[in-house]
């Protein structure tokens, strides 16, 4: 399992491929589920120019390890990779990567969904958006579905 908070931009698919190479799961993984979250240029009816992501150093990493461990208890997970940006984020930057390897797709997809949903609602990160006319803290995450 690898869980990291990154200040620098990362390329998620390269990270998945590189991590998979060092996993000792040759012949075991029948499914890899990958979630990549990227930064939009709109939110709640406003154009967004950029964003600052704050976290609680120590607790954030601890919480993500706990989420991953819980997913491993609920589903048959071979391994997982979670990377999350902090600091200054630009439009189209990758914010978060969650990758889960399992023998079968159901476990991989359910565990990946569980991790990202818990991360969105419980992991201590906070977004501050830069708009055309100032800044604002994002007050809550969405349900994950488009409303328009």
């Amino acid at each position, binding site marked *: 399992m690898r869980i990291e908070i990154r200040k620098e931009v990362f390329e998620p698919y390269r990270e998945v491929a590189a991590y998979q190479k060092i996993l000792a799961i040759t012949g075991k993984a029948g499914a890899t589920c990958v979630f990549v*979250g990227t930064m939009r240029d709109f939110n709640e009816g406003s154009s967004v120019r950029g964003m600052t992501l*704050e976290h*609680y150093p120590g607790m954030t990493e*601890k919480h993500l390890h706990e989420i991953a461990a819980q997913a491993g208890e609920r589903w048959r997970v071979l391994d997982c990779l979670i990377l*999350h940006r902090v600091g200054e984020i630009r439009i189209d930057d990758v914010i978060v990567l969650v990758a889960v390897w399992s023998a079968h797709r159901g476990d991989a997809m359910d565990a990946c969904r569980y991790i*990202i949903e818990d991360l969105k609602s419980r992991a*201590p990160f906070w977004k501050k958006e830069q708009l055309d006319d100032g800044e604002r*803290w*994002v007050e809550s995450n969405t349900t994950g579905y488009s409303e328009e």
Partner: protein
Amino acid sequence: MAVTVKYFASLRETLGRNEETIEFEDGMRLSRLWKKANDGEPMPESLMTAVNMEYVKGDVELADGDEVAFFPAVTGG
């Protein structure tokens, strides 16, 4: 006895501070700590709270050396 108190995000900006040490006698609970640190103001219900980097619910009792964190709803991912 003393605890370290941390504030994050919009709460940190509103209060104008990110960390402080609060000293107390025996029997300090979360809500009393908040009031002591914030001029007697009651703790906003919407805040999330953690003690030693674990979420807590309710008015838990604190111990010497605890790290307490107050913060608004999280918005990562």
